[in-house]
C-alpha cells in the first residue's frame, strides 16, 4: 500500500519527471456544453508530496478534482493513478484504491449526527451488510467500537467534540467545512484531494490543520493536492504549486517564483471580470500581488481572508 508513498517521500525531486508520479494527467479536458472548463491539462503529482493548486475562480480546479475522483467523466485525455488509467472507474472504487477528496461546498449527511457522519466513512465495516447485522452482531459491534474511537479522535482534533450528537445540518458553514476534513481523516488514503480546506476556518484551527497535513504527509506518506485561495497557506504547505487559468496550466513551480510571475498576476487581476481578483492575502514581501489583498476576502467567499490568513504564517515555516 505504502510502497509508492515512501519511495516518493525519500527520493529527491528529480528534474523533469519525478521519481514516482502517483497521479498523471495527460491532456485532460472537460467541456460543459460550449464551455471548456478544463482544457488539455497535463501535469504529474509526485508521490509523497504536498502540491498546491491555485488559480482564479472558475479556473477549473474543482472540475479537475471531480474527474480525478471519478465523479465527472473527462471529455478527453487520460488520468493515470499509479500508472494505471482510471478514466471511467466509478468513484467508490477509486476510494478503495486510495483516492479521497473533500468537497469545496460541504457535502454533509444532514440528518445524521456529526459523529455518524464520520463513522459512515471507513471501509471494511461488516455491519454495512445485513447478514452480519442479524447473525453475527458481536463482530459488527467490535468493528463499530474501533470506528467510533477513530471518529471521536477526529472530532476532538477538529474541535467538534461537543457537537457530536448534533445533526450535521445544524452546523455552521465553517463547522461543516471541518466535518468535510473529518471524513478524509477517517481513511488511510494514498492521495488526498483537499478542495479549499481552509475556507471559513478560523486562523488558529487553520494553523493546526496545516500541522496535521504536514504530519500525515511526513509520517504516513499520504500525497496531498490542496486547492486554496490563501496564498500564505499554500506557501507554507507546498513546495510546488500548479497555477491554472481558464482551464489550462499557466505555470508551475515553487510558490516564491509563481507568486512573482507576471502571468499569474495577470490571470488574477486581469481578465474581464473584476471579481476574479483573488490572489494571496498579502505577500510577505509586499510584492505586486498585495494589491489584490482586499479583493481576496471577497472572492474567497466564506473566506478567511486578508488579515486573518496573513500573519498566521511565518515564511520560515515552509516545509523542508
Amino acid at each position, binding site marked *: 500500500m505504502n510502497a509508492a508513498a515512501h519511495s516518493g517521500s525519500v527520493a529527491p525531486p528529480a528534474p523533469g519527471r519525478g521519481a514516482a508520479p502517483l497521479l498523471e494527467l495527460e491532456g485532460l479536458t472537460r467541456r460543459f456544453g460550449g464551455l471548456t472548463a478544463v482544457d488539455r491539462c497535463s501535469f504529474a503529482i509526485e508521490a509523497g508530496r504536498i502540491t498546491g493548486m491555485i488559480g482564479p475562480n472558475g479556473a477549473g480546479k474543482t472540475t479537475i478534482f471531480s474527474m480525478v475522483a471519478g465523479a465527472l467523466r473527462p471529455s478527453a485525455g487520460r488520468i493515470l493513478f499509479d500508472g494505471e488509467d482510471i478514466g471511467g472507474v466509478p468513484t*467508490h472504487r477509486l476510494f478503495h484504491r486510495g483516492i479521497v477528496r473533500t*468537497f469545496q461546498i460541504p*457535502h454533509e449527511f444532514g440528518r445524521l449526527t456529526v459523529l455518524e457522519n464520520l463513522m459512515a466513512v471507513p*471501509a471494511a465495516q461488516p455491519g*454495512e451488510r445485513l447478514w452480519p447485522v442479524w447473525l453475527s452482531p458481536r463482530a459488527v459491534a467490535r468493528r463499530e467500537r474501533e470506528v467510533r474511537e477513530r471518529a471521536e479522535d477526529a472530532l476532538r482534533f477538529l474541535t467538534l467534540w461537543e457537537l457530536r450528537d448534533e445533526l450535521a445540518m445544524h452546523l455552521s458553514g465553517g463547522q461543516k467545512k471541518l466535518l468535510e476534513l473529518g471524513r478524509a481523516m477517517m481513511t488511510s488514503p494514498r492521495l488526498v484531494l483537499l478542495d479549499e480546506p481552509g475556507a471559513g476556518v478560523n486562523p488558529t484551527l487553520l494553523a493546526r490543520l496545516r500541522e496535521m497535513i504536514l504530519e500525515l504527509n511526513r509520517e504516513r506518506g499520504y500525497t496531498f493536492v490542496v486547492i486554496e485561495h490563501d496564498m500564505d497557506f499554500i506557501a507554507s504547505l507546498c513546495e510546488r504549486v500548479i497555477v491554472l487559468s481558464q482551464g489550462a496550466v499557466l505555470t508551475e513551480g515553487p510558490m516564491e517564483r509563481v507568486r512573482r510571475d507576471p502571468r499569474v498576476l495577470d490571470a488574477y487581476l486581469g481578465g474581464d471580470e473584476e471579481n476574479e481578483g483573488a490572489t494571496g492575502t498579502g505577500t510577505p514581501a509586499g510584492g505586486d500581488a498585495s494589491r489584490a489583498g482586499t479583493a481576496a476576502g471577497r472572492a474567497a467567499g466564506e473566506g478567511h481572508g486578508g488579515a486573518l490568513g496573513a500573519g498566521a504564517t511565518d515564511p520560515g515555516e515552509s516545509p523542508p
Partner: protein
Amino acid sequence: MEQQLYGIFLYGVFLLTMGGIYAVLTLGLNIQWGFTGLFNAGVAGFFAIGAYTTAIVTSAASERHLGGYGLPVAAGLVAAMVASAVIAWGVGRICIRLRADYLAIATLGIAEIFRLVLKNEVWATNGPRGISLIPKPFEHLPEPWNQVGMLLLVFAVVAVLYVLLERARRSPWGRVMAAIRENEAAARAAGKDVERLRIEAFVLGAALMGLGGALMAHHIKFIEPNAAEPVSATFLVWVMLVIGGAANNRGAVFGAILIWTIWSTAEILSARLPPEWAVKSAYLRIFLVGLALQIILQRFPGGIFRERRFRTAPSSSTREQPP
C-alpha cells in the same frame, strides 16, 4: 347486547388484522423511502405480485386460472416474497439510478403495467374476476378462533419484522442507507457502492410488500386486479408512513393501524348514508384520509414518530434546535 359486543369484538379483530397487514407494507416502504430515500410509487405492483404468487401456488386446482399446486401457506408467503424481490431486482437494475421524482413516475407506470397484465392474462389470473378460495390459515378452527389465529399470525410477522428492521436501522447498514439518502455524492466519495445498496433496499422493501400482499390474499381469501389499484394500496401506504413518521419503524406500524382505522371507520359511516350518497363514499374516505394527513403534518412535521439517530448522550433528544 351480547350479540352486539361479540360483533364489535370480531370487527376489532378484523380491523387489527388488516392494520397489521398494512403495517407489513408500510415497513417495506419505510426501508425504501424512510431509510434510503427511494421514492417508490408502485407499492401496489409489488403487493399484487405477492398476492397473486401465493394465490397461484397455494390454491386448489381450477380451470379458471393457473395453479393447483396446493402448497402450504408458509410456502406461499415465501414464494410471494421471492417473486416480488426478483421483479424488484429487475426493475431496480433499470430504474435505481433515476432521480427521486423520475423513479416515482417509473415505478408508478410499472405497477400499472402489472395491473393490466393481471387483468388481461386471463388464462393465468382469471382476469378481472380474480382468484377466489385461497386457503386461509386456521380456517378449520371454530369462530372466533380462526379469526384470532390469523390476527396472531399477522402480528407475529409484524413483530419479527420490527425486531429485524430495528436492528438493521441502528446498524452501520442503516447508517450507510441514511447517508445515501442524505447525500449521494458524499456517500460515493466515501467508497459506498450506492447503486448496489439502493437496489438492496429496494429489493428488501419490495419483498415485504409482496409478503403483505400475500397475507392480504390469505386473509380475504380472494384477490382481483383492482386490489392493486394505486389508491387503495400505494396511496394509503404512503399516507401511513408519512403520518406515522418516515425512517421510524414504530411510526410505520402505528401509522398503518391509525390510518386503516380511519379508512375503515369512514366506510362504516358511509354505509349509513342514504343510498344516493353511497356512491360518493369512496371520495369521502379519501377526503378524510387527506384531512388527517393535513392536520397531523401541521402538528407533527416529521410524522408522529420522528427519525431517531444514534446519540452518545442519552438525554440529548430534546436538543433538536440548531445550536
